[in-house]
């Protein structure tokens, strides 16, 4: 039978990357797979996409998907500024950033805060395992209070909830998922690729080598048992118009700026992802219960993104010819005259 092709005529394999060097079973590998699926299904043009990351096991993963895209594995915790610069240079690029809970929550928290505040148009993924995998398992700032290391050491500091922080700071699309939740994660990734603005996606991604034991709140078992989905997420891109039958009150829909739609089917009491305060409440309460609320936590589909605010010419600045970037003799003359 013929291999499935996407809307730009490519097959899934063409969205793959290099062979992973991460541990077998690492949540990060599963996320890479979902990214490949999502980009394939969205019919992304890899040549117009850039992959960025900081340093960490998670940050290595951009090398393991979309080998057709440029990648930039920057320095520890500084991916946000590099991504910002790249998008200033060329706002037409579709940027996907992969970071870790240490990379973004510890050394990179400052740049994280300001990227969220700017609502920079990109898909920002945190592969969250509550530890520093690449340096052999120390606690990260997202480690929960009372969670233990293999050594038995107990974390006595409260975790930073990267989602709550992102919402508080102004990110316009904030979601949480689990590397093991194929359906939800793929749907959120596709929606994230469609949204214009900062998409902050915190994905619980267990570290099988250092943080998958009894006593850890970021282990596969713990996360499976404590994942508390806010709704069932499904995504219909603008280029498909499937009618999704929705029993009113049962399913709500969020329409993104490009016409794509995110369908949210209630599982418990209904949840409105456009209400900032209830989003904060939900995060606080689930956290208090030791659970992880997953799904589309907060979205503001039409918020201006940073590149729009900058109001630059339509072409990418990076590709402007000299004629557009070097003012004429007259301009210099005028300046000189003003100084005489």
């Amino acid at each position, binding site marked *: 039978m013929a291999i499935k092709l996407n809307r730009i005529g490519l097959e899934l394999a063409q969205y793959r990357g290099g062979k992973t060097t991460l541990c077998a079973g690492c949540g990060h590998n599963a996320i890479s797979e979902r990214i490949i699926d999502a980009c394939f299904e969205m019919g992304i043009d*890899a*040549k*117009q996409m*850039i992959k*960025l990351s900081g340093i960490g096991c998670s940050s290595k993963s*951009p*090398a393991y998907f979309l*080998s*057709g*895209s*440029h*990648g*930039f*594995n*920057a*320095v520890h915790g*500084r991916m*946000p*500024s*590099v*991504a*910002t*610069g*790249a*998008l*200033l*240079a*060329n706002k*037409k*690029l579709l940027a996907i950033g992969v970071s870790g809970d240490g990379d973004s929550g510890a050394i990179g928290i*400052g*740049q994280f*805060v*300001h990227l969220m505040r700017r609502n920079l148009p990109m898909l920002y993924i945190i592969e969250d395992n509550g530890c520093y995998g690449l340096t052999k398992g120390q606690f990260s700032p997202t480690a929960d209070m009372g969670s233990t290391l293999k050594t038995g050491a107990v974390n006595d500091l409260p975790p930073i909830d990267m989602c709550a922080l992102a919402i508080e700071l102004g990110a316009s699309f904030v979601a949480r998922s689990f590397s093991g939740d194929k359906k939800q994660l793929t749907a959120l990734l596709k929606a994230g690729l469609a949204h214009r603005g900062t998409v902050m996606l915190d994905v619980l991604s267990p570290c099988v080598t250092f943080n998958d034991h009894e006593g850890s709140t970021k282990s596969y078992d713990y996360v499976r048992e404590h994942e508390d989905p806010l709704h069932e997420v499904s995504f219909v891109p603008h280029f498909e118009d499937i009618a999704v039958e929705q029993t009113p009150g049962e399913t709500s829909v969020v329409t993104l700026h490009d016409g794509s739609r995110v369908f949210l089917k209630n599982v418990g009491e209904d949840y409105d992802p456009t209400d900032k305060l209830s989003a904060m409440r939900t995060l606080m309460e689930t956290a208090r219960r030791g659970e992880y609320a997953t799904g589309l936590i907060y979205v503001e589909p039409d918020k201006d993104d940073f590149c729009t605010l*900058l*109001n*630059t*010419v*339509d072409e*990418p*600045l*990076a*590709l*402007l010819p*000299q004629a*557009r*970037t*070097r*003012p004429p*003799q007259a*301009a*210099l003359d005028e*300046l*000189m005259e003003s*100084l*005489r």
Partner: protein
Amino acid sequence: MGTLEVASEAEPVSAGSPPRIVNDFSLQIATVNGSGSQTANLVLLRSIFQMGIPVSGKNMFPSNIAGLPTWYTIRVNPKGYIARKKEIDILVAMNAETAREDVLTLPPGAAVVYDEPLALKGLRDDLVFYPVPFDKLVAPVCPDAKLRRLVRNMIYDGILARLLSIDMAEMEKALLKQMGKKARAAQMNLAALKAGWDYAEASLPKGDAFSVERMNKTAGMILVEGNAAAAMGCMMAGCTVVGWYPITPSSSLCESLIGYLRKYRTDPDGKATFAAVQAEDEISALGMVIGASWAGARAMTATAGPGISLMSEFVGLGYYAEVPAVIFDVQRVGPSTGLPTRTAQGDILTTAVLSHGDTRHPLLLPSTVQECYEMAMDAFDLAEQLQTPVFVMMDLDLGMNTWMSDPFPYPDKPINRGKVLTEAKLRELGAQWGRYADVDGDGIPWRTIPGDGLPPFFTRGSGHNAKAQYSERADDYGNNMDRLSKKFDTARGLVPQPEIESRPGAPIGLIAYGTTDFSIRESRYQLQDERGIATSYYRLRGYPFGSSLGEFIDQHDRVYLVEQNRDAQMLALMRMELGPERLAKIRSVLHYNGLPVDARSITDQVLAHEGLQAPIPAALRHRMSGAVRASGVGGE
């Protein structure tokens, strides 16, 4: 010019039979910052400039916003020696806090215009005092009491115009230019100017030696600060992305740049051909520049010492991943926060070897505002040609003070984006091409840019091979590091080359860079004129060094390297590569007190090294040069 010659050498003596000293003096206005004296000072500077006389204006201000002592110094010199000079000939004393010490440090024969209540007359009998009742004079011309603090400054301009015979028409012209649209303010200030002139006319008989006379040495020239000049260069270089974080003395570089870009780089529909972002800190500012350059933009940032330290890690990434970046370091006095509003050349060594591991970075060394403009353009070309971070090492004196210059020429060569791969070039290179492959033998590889449709690659600060693949192989690492060394050698021929003035047969050679140039020129004149010592001069304009450096040293018996730092930082860089014979010839002349180096300090140190007694008391050691001023605040 005979008179002038004579005049300028004449020893000023105490008032009485004043010899005329024309167009050759330093004038200092002592006030407090935030008192709005800047307008009056610039009008004074500009009016003398408009009379065709070489001038420079230096603002010595404290590191706070208002209320602390500030000194503005104007150097007037018929031969065009406009470096800082130690002696102040004319003092305008407006600040009670410093007036006493200011007066006591004056040389005999100096003139003192002062606010009458300060009652300075009694302090010395070898000076010429001009008491002025500023408050009495300002009231009538400025009914609005709130504005008087500002307007009263214009009165000393009027006084000086009369005492120094500065053409009032030029003063008024300068004032109107300075005021721009603010008509009402202009009227008030004109009145104050006039009031000062009238008062001097009526009540201040000329008792000192100093005056100005029209010359023709500034025709067509401009007055500008180095930061503004560098900003113009960035704009003309086609800079498209600016990532910055405010820090004295570099802020005005980015702020002027943004101003120029708004004016000249915005399309009719209001859309900009640039993006300027005030980052959350310097690390982020450089991160944006590196991200933007990687994505194909011409990007820059400007900072000072503390920012350079913070950028260290990212600079190493730029070096090793080979991403262009243009970084201006407008140097201030370190270490640490140091003296943020004082000048130095103290970041040279750290910057040249910035970041851990084996790294080397090109430095551009502008001396004049025109070079700030030109080297800004060079920097963007070099960063892209070499695919590495490039530093333009300015300093506070150059960046924030006002300098005369010929108007800046329109760039005569097109923008050079370096080795950016094209379809055609790729076809030519075929399989040879690798992101980090040295196909041309100059150590510089060819790059592609995201979105250009050409083969992508993975950029990283970790080990990689010629194909940009991750590698920990010993051979890949070594080959890559050797190629980077080769690339740095290629840079020797690409950075701005030195300006060499060889005096055949001169035993002494002087080497300097940056703002030290102004004092060197005057010091060479002093050595020749006072001691008959001929000197050659090697003005260094870029690092890494070229072969001409060694040759220059070979041509002289003794070479003096003059710098404005404690540790002879540029000499340290030279010592890393010069042979023993050459090193044996070099002596270091250092100046590091936060004030721009003056010619006399250089001359004296050279003479001392030469075994010739300096004419001035040894007490005035080089470091101590310049009237030492208190601007510290007791309690703090």
